[in-house]
């Protein structure tokens, strides 16, 4: 993203945040709880620990810390990825923190407070012959079909493969990131694409099985989604998130999941360029 737009995003946010003391909306204060919903198939952002079946993840930790600072508890629920935005719109959730990318097409419905850098990343089985991203032109590449990644792959393919006279990438849909990794293991696809934030966990789970290829082929942000009319809630959450970044607790949580490199320096609003 350009320096200028970054500057605008930061100053807007700073202005808004300091304009008045951030206050929790009445309804939430009364209830004493935040209702949040996640798509818990996305390690390490949110997932069920296989041994304890507990809901854990980076988003869970961040949200819990924010809730602690707000003095409320969280009531968690789970939903498929495609239901996250509808959950926000129907007010089933107060805000969405669920490994969801800030994208222009999603800003019609909501505002994003960006809290983590991300980007789609190619990875292959360790024994694959592919060394650089261009080796994947003409190959079968899979990703979760309900995400924005299929479009990202198509864009990348047009730009990098077809423009360079190479055959286009063959996109193969998958239901979720586990399904995609299964297809990679079976050889139904030659490479897979996931958000770069998920790869350290996958590699830790199955050590030595996967290998990342190239760099994330586009950069973006994971954002916390708020309804457009929910400015008060958005501001108070942003205020506490900024505080967590300043006092280091944000970095501690990120490092716990091996994602220290994906940190943002301060919360940004609607900063992604996609």
């Amino acid at each position, binding site marked *: 993203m350009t320096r200028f737009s970054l500057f605008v995003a930061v100053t807007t946010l700073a202005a808004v945040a300091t304009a008045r003391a951030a206050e929790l909306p009445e309804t939430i204060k009364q209830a004493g709880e935040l209702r949040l919903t996640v798509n818990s198939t996305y390690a390490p952002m949110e997932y069920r620990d296989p041994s304890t079946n507990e809901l854990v993840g980076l988003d869970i930790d961040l949200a819990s810390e924010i809730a602690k600072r707000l003095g409320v508890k969280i009531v968690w629920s789970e939903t498929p990825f*495609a239901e996250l935005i509808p959950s926000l719109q129907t007010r089933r959730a107060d805000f969405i923190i669920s490994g969801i990318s800030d994208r222009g097409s999603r800003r019609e419905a909501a505002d994003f407070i960006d809290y983590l850098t991300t980007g789609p990343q190619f990875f292959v089985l360790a024994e694959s012959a592919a060394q650089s991203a261009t080796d994947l032109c003409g190959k079968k590449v899979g990703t979760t079909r309900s995400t924005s990644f299929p479009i990202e792959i198509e864009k990348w393919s047009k730009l990098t493969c077809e423009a360079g006279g190479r055959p286009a990438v063959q996109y193969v849909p*998958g239901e979720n990131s586990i399904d995609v990794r299964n297809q990679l293991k*079976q050889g139904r696809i030659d490479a897979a694409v996931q958000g770069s934030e998920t790869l350290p966990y996958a590699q830790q789970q199955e050590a030595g099985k996967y290998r990342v290829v190239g760099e994330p082929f586009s950069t973006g942000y994971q954002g916390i989604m708020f309804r457009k009319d929910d400015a008060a809630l958005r501001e108070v959450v942003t205020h506490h998130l900024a505080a967590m970044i300043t006092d280091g607790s944000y970095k501690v949580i990120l490092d716990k999941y091996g994602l220290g490199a994906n940190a943002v320096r301060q919360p940004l609003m609607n900063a992604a360029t996609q």
Partner: protein
Amino acid sequence: MRAEPTLAAGFPDISGMTVARRARWRRWLAAAAIVVVLAAIGRAFANGQIEWSYVGRFLTAKVILEGIVNTIVMAVLAMALGIVLGVAVAIMRLSPNPVLRSVAAGYTWLFRGTPLILQLLLWFNLALVFPTIGIPGLWSGRAVDLMTPFLSALLGLGINQGAYTSEVMRAGMLSVDAGQYEAAQAIGMGRLRALRRIILPQAMRVVIPPLGNEFIGMVKATSLASVIQYPEVLHNAENIYYANSRVIELLIVAGFWYLLVVSVLTPLQMLLERRFARGSLQITR
């Protein structure tokens, strides 16, 4: 001398009186109430947060039409497989041979005892268990190349259907009068020929209504194949709303097509029922 019976007094002749119609006002009241409720529901939908322009736009979109064609193709093929398996298994189940009986019972138990979606996922991910499969000496290949979404869906749906169809067929065959089998035996027919020529054709009359129902169920069961990437209409509708977030509108589009297909199939099933009642005095309306 009169041959008519003698009659006691005190019972008037009312043969000239006609029966008055019962007051129907209760019926009209109920109908009016239903109309009011339906109108309210209709109005709620019209005023709800549904962007009907999206429904209109995608109703005949190319991928949706391809999707419904794929739905129908898969439903027909899987049902055909299910019927073939069902007949074979039903015959095995009624065989005097205990080995055949046990195999048939085991098949039915296994495929009726596990959820269809689980079976579909297993077929699609077969290569996780058997990376290579083949017929020894003849051919071998990668399981993942063989188990395409199409074949996985066909096997998953068809083999599962066979377990249910076999029970329907077995009930149908048992419903045929035992004397029919004896008459066939009396003219020297063996068991299989008697089944084929005499029992099964008669069983069809009993079996068509439940099979017709099963087929309608199959049309909708194909939607489960969306999770193994078979491009039927729900899968394609999902892809659209994954991109534009119009969940309800696209689900209405898919739902419309399912309703349409089922509405066409239902009278066809009636026609089929009538054809198989040939030879019986009870011609259904």
